[in-house]
């Protein structure tokens, strides 16, 4: 066979082999895209301004978000044995299963999420890369923050002082435990890693539920020690934002607006006590 005849056949064969071999990573990319869409909707749904724009819109957004998380789970659980083996060989299976864990968590399927995360961190589990490992380690804290939120927002069965005290203590314990876990994880991260911004905001989310619980259950503001912690968390976020290098003016303004939202929802008074 001459080179002229052989060339297109070689190129065609290699291209076909390449496409076949990339099927499993492509499926994972689809799942990643679906997850990003779901997470973006999830976060936006809670954006202060959009909440104000109307209950109807928020409900629609919530439905799309849940559908997107469900699609992630379905895509990963529906993978063939061959696709999973391929992902395992490429060290991508850990990423796929982390997406499933996070989706289960966001759908409120806490027990399933916890069990799946435990399996992923057990010996012999598929290899999990740096960011994903941090998220799996953070999962118990993230679930506790959700539980604190649910406890703080759920109506009381009776209006007894005892129930109020018990409920508040439960919220306080969940928030303290979650923040303790996140503090340990934060101590292991270089200061300007993007995951740091995420972990700090998770702490601020916990602080928000605590602040609301004190108001709702005890008609009071935060005790000094909790207010101090909230201030610390907020200043850590402000510092993190200021340390982000290479941002355009527009990106910087957007991030500052997100930081301002946290200040507003937590009542952080920087005039009286600026971040040092």
């Amino acid at each position, binding site marked *: 066979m001459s*080179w002229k005849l052989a060339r297109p056949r*070689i*190129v065609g064969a*290699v291209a076909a082999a*390449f496409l076949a071999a*990339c099927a499993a*990573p492509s499926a994972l*990319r689809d799942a*990643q895209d679906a*997850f*990003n869409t779901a*997470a*973006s909707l*999830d*976060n*936006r749904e*809670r*954006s*202060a*301004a*959009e909440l104000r724009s109307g209950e109807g819109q928020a409900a629609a957004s919530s439905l799309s978000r849940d559908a997107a998380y469900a699609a992630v789970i379905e895509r990963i659980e529906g993978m063939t044995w061959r696709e999973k083996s391929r992902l395992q060989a490429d*060290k991508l299976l850990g*990423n796929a299963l982390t997406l499933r864990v*996070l989706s289960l968590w966001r759908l409120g399927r806490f027990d399933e999420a916890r069990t799946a995360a435990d399996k992923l961190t057990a010996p012999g589990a598929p290899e999990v890369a*740096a*960011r994903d490992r941090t*998220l799996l380690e953070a999962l118990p804290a993230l679930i506790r923050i959700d539980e604190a*939120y*649910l406890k703080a927002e759920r109506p009381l069965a009776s209006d007894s002082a005892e129930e109020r005290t018990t409920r508040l203590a439960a919220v306080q314990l969940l928030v303290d435990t979650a923040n303790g876990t996140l503090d340990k994880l934060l101590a292991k991260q270089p200061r300007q*890693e*993007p995951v740091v911004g*995420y972990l700090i*905001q*998770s702490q*601020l*989310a*916990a602080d*928000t*539920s605590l*602040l*609301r619980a004190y*108001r*709702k259950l005890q*008609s009071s*503001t935060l005790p000094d020690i909790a*207010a101090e912690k909230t201030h610390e968390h907020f200043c850590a976020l402000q510092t993190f*934002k200021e340390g982000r290098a290479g941002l355009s003016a527009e*990106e910087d*303004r*957007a*991030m500052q*607006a*997100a*930081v*301002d*939202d946290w200040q*507003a*929802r937590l*009542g952080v*008074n920087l005039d009286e006590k600026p971040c040092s």
Partner: protein
Amino acid sequence: MPAQAQIILFAMQSAVRLGAAARRAYVDATLARELVLPLPSFVAAPGIAAALQFFSQSPRMLAEGPRRRRDLLDKALVQRVQLSKDENDELVIFYMEVMVSTWRARDGGSMADGSQLSAAGLDALVTVRQWSRGADPNPSAAQRLAGTFVSIGVQYFTQVPGALDESSRSGRALLALLRGFEEIDFATEPLGKLPEKLFYATLETVGADPSIATSDLRVQKLISATASSLATDVHERIAELRAASGPDSNQEERIQEWAELVFRSVLGSAGRLVAGDPEGYLGIRDAASADAVKTVAGAAIALILDQPAGKLDQVFTRDSLDALVRASLQVAARHPELFSGVHEPALRNMLAALAGEVGKFERVLQPNALPRIAAAVVAETARNVPVLWPELATDPRKHLLVTAATTAVELLTREWPAGRWKVKLGPDQISGVVEAVVAEVAATPGWLFDSVGKQNAQLRVVLEAVVGVLRARGDARLNGDTAAAILRASLAAVATRAEFGAQLAGVPAIASALDRVLAQLFEPALDPKAAWALVRSEVVIAIVQSALAGLAARGVSQAEIEKTATTLREQIDAIADGGAWTLESVRKALS
């Protein structure tokens, strides 16, 4: 012209390799993709809890501002009365007005029209990549693909017959270089521009000295072994550097540049040694010769790169590196066992110890001083390895010549108490004396060890005493060159006649003899005519050498030393009286 079938086969293999590299890059990119992370649940809208938390921290707000706000705050925070829903909403509006005006005062930002902005900002704050910056363990897609192209190129030229013209000098040399690269995976190993640099270095070295690129297979193996060893070394160093502190282009370029310089030096030096003595040099087994060359290249690169950046970078030039490499290769030819197997790190350890110990002294860190000393230590080591280097790799500080060089450098660079005139030796003079010390100790290890192997301080005692005499007796007529020559003469005298090292009136005899000779030569009240005649460096050196030679011949004793001093005094008086004299006549009188 390569055969058609071979080209097709090669193209298929290459296409498969490229496809695999592209797929691997796709997999890496999939794992590294950014994810938008969902935050846990929380109520986002600022409410009455936030408003009261804010105002409760600001006593000023309770006393100042709109009347209605003050009333609501008094009710909620002072009287602790539950506010109605409308009152709550009203207070939240007051709160947001304060927040917005604060932000506006800060930078014009506002909550009212910033909803899209804050949502985008939140996304940005929770979008997280897989790996920390610089911590991605996988090579970039560009490196994977470019590296695969290079590997395919290497494979093409080494495996397809006729791809490189093996009848030409440069073709043979390049083929040898490429064979050195055959085992390297360019797609995953961070080598930067090293292959390119070694490619040009090979062509330039061969072009500058055609004798190197003979058809001798040993030279070709030498090129392959050196290139392969340096590429591996560079890859390991860059990988270590990245693991420790992330990518650093400056440090990586420094590693590559030194590897290139060492490659040129090894190729040039070893090539010439083989060409100059094809039967004798590297006439050892092939495997051993390859090991020797690799070891020398590795030791040379480690000598510079294991020191902090900048410490030795300016100390070694191409010439001084050549001298060190040449000396090492000559030792390798005589003692291949020192460069392979368990002893493979010995040379590297020895040079590291030398750079560490001797390099502490600022004046030997001038161009050429340290390299000259290192070359002397390496070259002289071959004279008597079992005695001079009894423990090889285990403790290079027990290398006699390293000890001797360190002792000499320390004494020659020491700052002495102020005397009437301080002799200061320059880097060249220091390295000259140290070379002499190293040669003397190599010939007579007794300078450092006695007959039963016990360590003694003879070298230190003698050198210290001689330097002491030079500083005490020398004046402006004693320059650095003269002082260095006298030091060398003193060492030679002690080596020739052990009695010079023995103690006479509390000092080594050599110091006593030198002191008496220099006392006559540098007498402050010396007659001007005699001083004029004796000021020249070569006259001082010749007189010292003759006086020491005479003592060595007659026997070293206090009486003989005094006799020598008297003879010299008489010669000087004769010169002062205007009598006829020649240097030869003075030397004869002293002998």
